[in-house]
């Protein structure tokens, strides 16, 4: 179960991937294929939103308030306009807003998880492998971090960022602040699990062997220990991606999130939540379904990936 990479022949990466058990298993698992298709479809439609969407909901000058609250496929009583999925309270086309909102959600989600993962794995490996006072500092920092609920971290970062950015840039800042806030509140999970696993792995024979032949600490950590701690990291990362998208929604529920003029999927749900009892079900339903399909597919794909990538389960 040790070093697979060193044994493989110098074939092209792609050919190797296509021929692999991995790809074969993928083709044979309907759930994985469907999930991957859904994720791909959603990601692509988010990326190409400006080409697909009938309207640009982020352009305030193009909105007509009188179009507000139009039901799906129905003509607006004042303007006569028809929208596939209806409009929200501002007269924004829900379909277009979902596409644009998904861009923001996906961007925030991917960036935040990437940030958390890189930070968490690095610190976790160092803490677990190096140990000593460095470990103490990292793990105590993790304690401090965990003490603060994500909302608080976000509020803190929002406030600090507001204080230090020139006021004319503040509107562009919100997204980065969200990424930073969600990422910072999530790295500890990675760090703790990686450290825990590293503690177990580092005394195993293969690591001792690598050490004995004189490999450097960095190489050992990256080439030998890291691949063996990735299984729990993948579990966390998949859930984290969906969670990051959802965290954005929660933050917006508490009043710290993407600005309402450029709503993310989560902000749309937050806005739609206000119309749950008033009969405008489409404002919350369609963004929720989109979020659900996205998060669900990512999670299902992650589930399958984890089983498939794990050499011990083959």
């Amino acid at each position: 179960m040790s070093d697979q990479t060193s044994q493989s022949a110098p074939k092209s990466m792609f050919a190797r991937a296509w021929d692999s058990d991995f790809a074969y298993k993928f083709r044979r698992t309907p759930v994985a294929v469907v999930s991957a298709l859904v994720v791909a479809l959603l990601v692509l439609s988010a990326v190409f939103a400006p080409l697909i969407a009938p309207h640009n909901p982020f352009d305030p000058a193009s909105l007509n308030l009188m179009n507000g609250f139009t039901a799906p496929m129905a003509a607006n009583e004042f303007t006569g306009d028809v929208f596939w999925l209806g409009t929200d309270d501002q007269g924004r086309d829900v379909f277009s807003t979902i596409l644009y909102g998904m861009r923001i959600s996906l961007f925030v989600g991917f960036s935040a998880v990437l940030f958390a993962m890189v930070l968490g794995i690095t610190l976790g490996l160092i803490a677990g492998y190096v140990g000593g006072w460095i470990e103490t500092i990292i793990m105590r920092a993790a304690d401090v971090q965990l003490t603060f609920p994500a909302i608080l971290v976000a509020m803190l970062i929002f406030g600090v960022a507001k204080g230090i950015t020139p006021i004319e840039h503040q509107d562009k800042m919100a997204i980065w602040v969200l990424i930073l806030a969600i990422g910072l509140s999530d790295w500890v999970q990675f760090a703790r699990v990686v450290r825990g696993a590293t503690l177990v792995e580092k005394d195993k024979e293969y690591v001792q062997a690598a050490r004995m032949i004189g490999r450097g600490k960095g190489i050992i950590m990256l080439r030998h220990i890291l691949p063996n701690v990735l299984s729990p990291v993948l579990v966390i990362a998949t859930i984290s991606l969906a969670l990051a998208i959802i965290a954005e929604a929660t933050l917006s529920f508490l009043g710290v999130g993407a600005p309402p003029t450029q709503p993310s999927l989560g902000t749309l749900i937050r806005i739609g939540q206000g119309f749950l009892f008033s009969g405008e079900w489409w404002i919350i339903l369609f963004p929720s379904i989109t979020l659900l399909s996205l998060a669900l597919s990512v999670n299902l794909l992650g589930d399958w990936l984890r089983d498939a990538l794990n050499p011990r389960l083959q």
Partner: protein
Amino acid sequence: MKRALSILAVASALGGPVLAEEFKWAGTTDPQTMDPHAVNSAPVLGFLNNVYEGLVRRGKDMSIEPALATSWEPIGNGEGWRFILREGVTFHDGSSFDAEDVLFSYQRASNEVSDTRSWFSPVSDVKVVDAYTVDILTKAPNPIFPDSIANWMMVDKGWAEANEAALPDKENGNYATLNANGTGAFMVSEREPGLRTELVPHTGWWGEVEHNITRAEFTPVQNPATAVAALLSGDVDMINPVPIQDAERLAGSGDVQVIRGIEARVIMLGMAQESDVLKYGDDEGKPNPFKDARVRAAVSHAVNVPAILKTIMRGNAEPASQLVSPAMRGYSNANADRPAFDQAKAKALLAEAGYPDGFSFGLKCPNNRYLNDEAVCQAVTSMLAQVGMMAQLDAMPVQNYWPELRADNYDMYLLGWSPGTFDAEHPIRFLASTPNKEKKLGSWNFAGYSNARIDALLPMIQSEIDATKRQAMLDEAAQIMQDETAYVPMYVQPLVWGTGQNISLTQRPDNFFILRWVSVN
């Protein structure tokens, strides 16, 4: 205004076997103190109006009527007012009410540490004439003084002193923060701050009992959807407010009734007029266009208020043309029309002012202070964009909002104003006077609007006894503010309450919930 009661209004179908006379209601904000002089805010004063009473009170139509004073009259040539007190009134603890309590309550409420102090700035002295007569002397003739003290509540001198609560203590709290001893129709029987407050009728109350409540319980519920769910499921009998968008559907559901009215609060846009430069947006640092009255007029023509009222407010609000609503005293009927929605005119005005291509600026907005405030600001943003004024919207919770306004961090902002005195003089004093710390004028005039004639009119309005002359001056002030577009008043915020089908009550425009007008059928 009140919706017709259904004939089938028996007990709420969804509610459990609740005792008929128990009444539970929910609002967004818990009154933070039971001390009537510690905090001058609507949730506190509104709640305590059920527990404490003043010399005068407001009736169902907001008119001033006798309460602990049975009558009052001006002294001499405007030196003050004489109040004849009601005899035989007892506090909840059984002690009796007399002139000493009035004097004590004056000293308590006008003390430096009391938030209600500003009500007494026209007062020079309070004199006890006999046990049931009190003279309140004013520095200048003050025709509206009795109107301005409806929320000045009487506290028992003996009780306050015995419990070491002779003065309110907002910072550290004292006995009066958690306990109440008023003369009102209800007494506080249990108080868990932030969670629930239980009231029971005051058996020794002097007035005629209209309600049939044996026990009432107030619970603060912040999340509007939770409150609506609680009403629909019968867990509470009344909620305030009902989210505007839910009003129609709730009213049509048959399980609950929706009671709508017009609140005293006018929602308006303010624009920086002191600052020389714009502070936000792509034109940050460039000269401030809002100093030009034509640009401000363009804003008022560019905002499509009827559309906001039709969609976001769902037909529940009335347009506003001035800083007070038509229900207030001193409203200027001569200036009742607000500028028409006219994009061409707005563009023409902008071009005339030298901005044919518009400009970019920052709009600050609260997102949890007024009904649908954020949605309104979003709509305003898109309406202004359509005539070339590109607003960069920054919506935030109110606790961050006021500091931003105080620090002048805005180019344009949203403000709601409800005059505490229910008189048109109030917004002139706070919103339109040139800011002056010493004279305590213009303390909410963040925009820095300044007009010498308005400043000159204010003291004259304050001391004019002749109603016609006074109204003429108020009309003039309203006219000036309209001509110069000091603010862009948009609409009067609606009041929307929801109750079970078996509840009847009276809604007052100040959004105070008066328990003694409630009956459970």
